Structures are given as C-alpha cells and as structure tokens.
C-alpha cells in the first residue's frame, strides 16, 4: 500500500479509535486485496511503510464482498460497482479477505 495512505490509515485509527474505523478496499485482484488487508490489520508485509510492525487489526472489507453489498443501496451499488462485479474475480477476492480477517482482525 502507498506509504502516504498507510500514514493516513494510522492517523485515523489513532484519532477515532481503531474500533470505530472500517477500511473498504477496491483492489483489482485477490492477492492485491489480501496484501492491503494485511497491511491495515497485521502491518505492512513489505516492511516499507508507517504500518510496518503495527497491528491495527482494523475491520477491513472489499467493496465487492457480499456483506458490504448487502448494506449498500442496490441502485447506487449497481451504478457504481455493478459492472466491476462482472469483471473482477469476486470469489477469489472474498476468500482472500475472509482469510485475512480471520487471522488478524480485532474488531
């Protein structure tokens, strides 16, 4: 994850309390989604950014996951994300995300 974005995630977790922050991803692939999710839960796996070794354990989902889709206004979801559901490998992304949440998510 971009270093500046890592810095902002860390700041928001400190400002609002990690239990009040949810991270939503839009990554194009399961692997990329998993890496970003790991970064905001268990720390930056590439050891490059401000989240290196920082285990925020934030609640993190991909916008294409069923849990999130269920909460969003269906018309808006269709307009903003509908087409990408056809393009992205939603099953792969969902399974990567679930995996990371089970391992590292604290909230």
């Amino acid at each position, binding site marked *: 994850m971009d270093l500046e974005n890592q810095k902002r995630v860390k700041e928001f977790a400190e400002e609002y309390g990690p239990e009040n922050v*949810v991270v939503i991803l*839009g990554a194009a692939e399961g692997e*990329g989604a998993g890496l970003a999710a790991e970064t905001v839960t268990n720390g930056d796996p590439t050891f490059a950014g401000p989240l290196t070794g920082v285990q925020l354990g934030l609640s993190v989902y991909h916008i294409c996951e069923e849990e999130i889709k269920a909460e969003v206004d269906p018309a*808006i979801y269709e307009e*903003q994300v509908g087409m990408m559901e056809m393009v992205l490998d939603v099953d792969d992304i969902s399974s990567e995300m679930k995996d990371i949440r089970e391992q590292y998510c604290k909230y």
Partner: protein
Amino acid sequence: MSILNGKKVVIIGDRDGVPGPAIADCVKTAGGEPVFSATECFV
C-alpha cells in the same frame, strides 16, 4: 450487526478495480462516513 453504519470509513480504491469515489458513494448509502478516499495506481 451493521458493518458500515455509524463508522468512520477509510477507502483505498484501485484505479484498475473500483476507484475511491465510487466506493465512497456506496458507503454513504449504508450510513458510513467516508473520512478518507484514495485511489491507488500500480501502473
């Protein structure tokens, strides 16, 4: 239990996946408050 309602939402979109502003529009309808929205670019 709701995931997004009443939460501060940090959005990390992807230029080749779903971009930040598109996610933000969705999150708002679920009662989440986007506090940050970025779009990453790997190319």
